[in-house]
């Protein structure tokens, strides 16, 4: 018995010894950079990271540390480590709405001048907006994302231009064929919908990191649309719990004609619902006001370098390599994730990746309006908006005033970071 315990102890000590040696060895040669990012299912980040490690000529080696697949859980893990000043994080895969929060907390190294020129070249302004905080570049966009209006050509030969047109067309088709799919559960997806409706109506939630905008007339117009979307006879029955995935499933089920969703639904329909796939087409996010252009949402991942990293120089060098146009194209090919540089969309391969809707994606990202993430208290804002608006079925499309007042109150409190949320 004792012999066995001693043997086990010896093994443990030996392992630690080896690990320690490994550490000092790699310090002499290639530096190991830990990239904390969710495990993107296509394996595209791994592939480009491996290529970059090789091209660095032994300067660095990128090692993956995987975060959960849900954005809020990714944030929780990152925040817990960064709050404790963990030096094992080098590269961070950040959702586009975390830049302000992480930068203000002092967790990100600002992008150095010489890197900034390389990594912002030809990048869409809307995307760069999500990478900056107080006019300083803190993160480097690697891939973007946006929502399109997906519709069925057989039931609606022309895509509706506005939300009102879409709801009218859907109601006319009836609940057996005409349903539309949106995201209105109490989660970040609802904040995306509300923000895009408000932006498309011609106003914004914030006018600066700590100042509220929310002009009454356009905001009420946006909320009235949201109320209509939730109470229509063509709304999905699970509208109060609807997410990107329930929307996709609903659309693949066949009783829907319209859906607001990200491009992942395209390959998914191809695989799961070939009949629906034959009819699927994409158009730009609908307008709220026929006289104003629509403002599609923007998602995606920006790379940040941790302020506690021991190898910031190598980390920025790795970032420069990871976001090279050829790598962006590779990520789009493998994972279907839209590039952040406009010139990549000129490549012929892009049309194969997004057959028939490459231009819509490009235009959507170009015209996109980010969520109010310039506020370091974005998380408070997001929680407050969710609380104020959910369930969306309670918004009266004919009288959106009470919903507007509620939203204003909550946003005001969130900006001041007062009270519970």
């Amino acid at each position, binding site marked *: 018995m004792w012999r066995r315990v001693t043997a086990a102890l010896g093994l443990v000590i030996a392992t630690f010894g080896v690990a320690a040696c490994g550490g000092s060895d790699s310090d002499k040669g290639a530096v190991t950079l830990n990239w904390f990012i969710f495990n993107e299912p296509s394996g595209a980040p791994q592939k480009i990271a491996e290529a970059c490690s090789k091209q660095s000529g032994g300067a660095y080696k990128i090692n993956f540390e995987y975060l959960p697949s849900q954005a809020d859980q990714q944030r929780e893990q990152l*925040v817990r480590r960064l709050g404790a000043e963990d030096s094992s994080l080098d590269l961070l895969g950040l959702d586009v709405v975390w830049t302000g*929060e992480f930068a203000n907390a002092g967790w990100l190294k600002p992008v150095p001048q010489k890197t900034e020129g390389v990594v912002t070249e030809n990048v869409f302004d809307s995307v760069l907006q999500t990478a900056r905080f107080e006019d300083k570049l803190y993160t480097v966009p690697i891939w973007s994302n946006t929502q399109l209006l997906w519709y069925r050509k057989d039931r609606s030969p022309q895509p509706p231009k506005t939300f009102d047109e879409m709801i009218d067309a859907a109601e006319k088709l009836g609940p057996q064929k005409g349903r539309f799919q949106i995201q209105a559960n*109490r989660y970040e997806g609802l904040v995306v919908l509300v923000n895009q409706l408000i932006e498309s109506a011609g106003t914004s939630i914030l006018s600066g990191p700590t100042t509220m905008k929310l002009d009454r007339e356009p905001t009420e117009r946006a909320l009235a649309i949201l109320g209509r979307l939730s109470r229509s006879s063509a709304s999905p*029955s699970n509208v109060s*719990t609807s997410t990107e995935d329930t929307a996709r499933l609903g659309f693949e089920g066949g009783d829907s004609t319209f859906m607001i969703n990200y491009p992942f639904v395209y390959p998914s329909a191809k695989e799961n619902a070939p009949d629906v796939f034959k009819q699927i087409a994409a158009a730009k996010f609908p307008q709220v006001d026929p006289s104003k252009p629509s403002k599609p949402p923007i998602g995606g991942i920006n790379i940040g370098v941790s302020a506690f990293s021991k190898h910031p120089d190598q980390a920025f060098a790795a970032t420069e390599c990871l976001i090279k146009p050829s790598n962006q194209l590779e990520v789009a090919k493998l994972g279907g994730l839209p590039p952040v540089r406009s010139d990549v969309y000129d490549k012929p391969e892009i049309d194969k990746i997004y057959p028939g809707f490459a231009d819509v994606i490009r235009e959507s990202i170009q015209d996109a309006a980010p969520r109010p993430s310039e506020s370091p208290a974005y998380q408070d804002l997001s929680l407050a908006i969710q609380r104020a608006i959910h*369930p969306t079925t309670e918004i009266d499309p004919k009288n959106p005033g009470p919903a507007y007042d509620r939203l204003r109150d909550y946003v005001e409190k969130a900006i001041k970071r007062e009270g519970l949320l």
Partner: protein
Amino acid sequence: MTAVPIGKRKADKPAISDKTKAERKLAYMLVAPAVIAMLLVTVYPILYAVALSVQKVDLRFPDESGFVGLDNYAAVLTSDLWWQGVLNTTLIAVISVSIELVLGMGLALIMHKALFGRGIVRTATLIPYGIVTVVAAFAWFFAFDPSSGFVNNLPFVPEDKAWFGEHNSALSVIIMAEVWKTTPFMALLLLAGLATIDEGLYEAARVDGATAWQRFWRITLPLLKPALLVALLFRMLDAFRVFDSIFVMTRGSQDTESVSILGYNQLISRLNLGLGSAVSVLIFVLVLGIAFFFVRVLGTSSPAGQGEK
């Protein structure tokens, strides 16, 4: 609880021999490591939470920290969300513990009286308790989810019922999941209590012509009271901190937030450590209050009950 008898003994015997003194010293030394470990892992975090709760601390705004006195507590106690959370938590705790008590008692009696297959009966009963709460919560979530669950295909259930889309049904599913998960724990504690009751009492009662109902009401219940109170106390404290099921099923939407979810939102999502710690300290005070109520108000009769035996 053990402190009371020791104190009593001390009062009874004022003279302490050298041997007892040495033994007592040894006893102190033996418990010291455990006490120190407890102090480190429980008292320190509790005091730290109390210290944080009177400060403005927000990880996202490192430059803004400072002492704010009771401001955080005022913010929590004047918030509708806090009181809604307390109400939800109390509802979930009281309803689920009541149902568990009845079901648990039934299960305990079955396990106690089972003539054959005792091992199998006990194991089968305990399975839900052995499943990780998060996993159990997901199982219930998927069962009631309209797109993946079987529940909406059952007779008398409307096919498109969105269980988590509305307050009452969402809360009911959460309570059902809690009951399913922890009834075995209740049954186990009650079974232990049943095992201590002398069979002779029942025989005597039977000889005197007591019915089964009378035997249960007059013998089982009174003698089970100490075990029953302990089981209720444990479950109440546990149920009051309900978190996993709600987090998995609704994330607190449809007004199903418990106080723990509220604390989580302030601490983990908002990184507002001051406000979040105030919530935690208030939950601690509430739990302490429940324990006090059980031990002092209800528990006073339990030593007497044991004394009679």
